[in-house]
């Protein structure tokens, strides 16, 4: 896989401002030098425009951008490094392969210009993304999913120091989407260069990202580690549906009869629907705030498969006046529960109280 290079001990840092139509952008972000950062926000928040500005494709932005030790843009000093000198790998929202070249010709475009670096495992990447049978095909004979996989390998083969993915799954559906998401998930563990992943889908983000930048109306409203940021109580209402916990654990058992797997994480154990995980593998799982029911005591005679003991950390008003958000500590993991104000009062709970969080297993199937 791609090797780290000198000068990338810091990640991307940017302070940019520009206008696009009615939207005024004012972006200030600092990204870690490794791992996946999700640029997340509702549709129309300006995520793609932001990524284009960071890549230098959108040239209207004024300010500073640096990557590691390298300055990419400094408008005050009239410095602007054009995208072709930034060593970025970019995957666009809709498949953008060169129609005048075959699949192999597309893959070689960046690979050749990067000088066919020997540390890149070209064959390995081609196999990992299942592109080998397509190599001699014409681009317009490919399906949407195939095109996006080729675009992904093409970007990786250009030996990028930073990968930028602009909603690569949004034009795909069903199986193609699941396939590519799995490819990206497997890439996550081995990739040595940082990645910025634009998405408005919280499930994708929960599976892929380590770091989160929340964008709303051209502004960064929150940034930080994925788990911490998604479990915050003070996020703007537009992000309400995204709220919840992302837990990381290990698959410890598989019930073939009921088609369930058991996930062990610091807060306890959870049953969830089997996709095709194997026992022993690491797994991330999102528990949406809507999918958590709070009880004072463990229940019998409930259909909820999972009950976790926890302690109440804090409570806050939700975006709807009838609802509150309750922050819970389950063995060091922060969970969120969205419940009605009436239930909150009826339960008679307060910060510090012990409670039980019930989680429906079906809500955990991705």
């Amino acid at each position, binding site marked *: 896989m791609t090797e780290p290079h000198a000068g990338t001990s810091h990640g991307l840092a940017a302070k940019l401002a520009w206008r696009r139509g009615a939207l005024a952008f004012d972006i200030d972000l600092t990204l870690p030098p490794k791992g996946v950062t999700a640029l997340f926000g509702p549709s129309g928040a300006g995520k793609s425009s932001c990524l284009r500005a960071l*890549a230098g*494709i959108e040239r209207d932005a004024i300010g500073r951008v640096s990557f590691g030790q390298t300055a990419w843009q400094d408008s005050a000093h009239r410095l602007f490094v*054009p*995208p*072709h*000198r930034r*060593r*970025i*790998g*970019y995957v*666009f929202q809709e498949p*953008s392969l*060169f*129609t*005048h*070249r*075959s699949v192999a*010709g597309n893959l070689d*475009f*960046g690979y050749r*210009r*990067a000088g066919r670096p020997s540390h890149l495992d070209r064959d390995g990447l081609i196999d990992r993304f299942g592109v080998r049978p397509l190599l001699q095909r*014409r681009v317009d004979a490919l399906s949407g999913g195939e095109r996006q996989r080729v675009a992904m390998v*093409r*970007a990786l083969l*250009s030996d990028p120091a930073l990968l*930028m993915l602009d909603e690569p799954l949004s034009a795909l559906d069903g199986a193609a989407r699941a396939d590519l998401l799995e490819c990206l998930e497997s890439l996550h563990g081995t990739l040595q260069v940082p990645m910025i992943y634009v998405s408005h889908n919280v499930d994708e983000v929960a599976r892929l990202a380590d770091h989160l930048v929340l964008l709303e109306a051209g502004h960064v409203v929150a940034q930080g580690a994925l788990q911490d940021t998604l479990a915050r109580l003070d996020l703007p209402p537009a992000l309400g549906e995204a709220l919840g916990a992302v837990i990381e654990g290990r698959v410890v058992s598989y019930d073939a009869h009921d088609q369930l797997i058991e996930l062990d994480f610091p807060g306890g154990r959870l049953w969830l629907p089997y996709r095709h995980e194997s026992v022993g593998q690491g797994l991330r799982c999102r528990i949406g705030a809507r999918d958590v029911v709070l009880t004072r005591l463990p229940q019998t005679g409930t259909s909820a498969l999972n009950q976790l003991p926890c302690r109440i950390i804090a409570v806050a008003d939700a975006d709807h006046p009838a609802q509150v958000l309750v922050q819970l500590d389950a063995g060091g993991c922060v969970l969120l529960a969205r419940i009605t104000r009436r239930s909150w009062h009826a339960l008679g709970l307060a910060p510090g109280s012990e409670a039980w969080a019930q989680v429906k297993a079906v809500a955990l199937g991705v």
Partner: protein
Amino acid sequence: MALLTEADIEALGLTLRLAATVTLLLLLLGLPLAWWLAHTRSPWRRPIAAVVALPLVLPPTVLGFYLLMLLGPDGVVGRALAALGLAALPFTFKGLVVASMLYSLPFVVQPLHNAFDAVGNRPLEVAATLRAGPLDRFFSVALPLAWPGVVTAAVLGFAHTVGEFGVVLMIGGNIPGQTRVLSMRIYDHVQAGEYHQANVLSLCLLAVSFAALLAMSLLRTRRSARD
């Protein structure tokens, strides 16, 4: 009676030589110009596009007349050329090339401009993220993708130059081997009542035009069927 007289063949050769020269020069000039028109944000874009399109609506005789004024011994360009010790352009092959280039300019620039517009920015942005510099992007992405437009431009430029008359009349005259092109020769034949000769030459022009259009369609499809 011979099908074509020697003078006819000379006129045919001259016409093809003129059209080939003009097409080649126009492609060299038109590619950067059309590229600029397709990508610039300059306020000069519209005025310059209008000037390029002017020969489309201007009567050829008007164009020829102003060129004669401009290039003639008393014209601005004519005097400048004379001061540089260069020969005057009117009534020479070179003068005809210059005039034909202006006359056929929109027929070359507009298909190229449309083709570059149709390619759009996205493939160029993709190429930039794959480390291709501006010139590299032009030759390895824009030009191959705009290829059908390039073929159309070349064929239209060629065919249009072959068929010109008014501009030739004003700036070229009718000098055998120098400026007497096919359309002049046809006019001469008709004036002299030699309808048979005029017919044969006209058929030649028809054949050239047909062949050009056929070549265009073949070149466009063969290219798109490749790889």
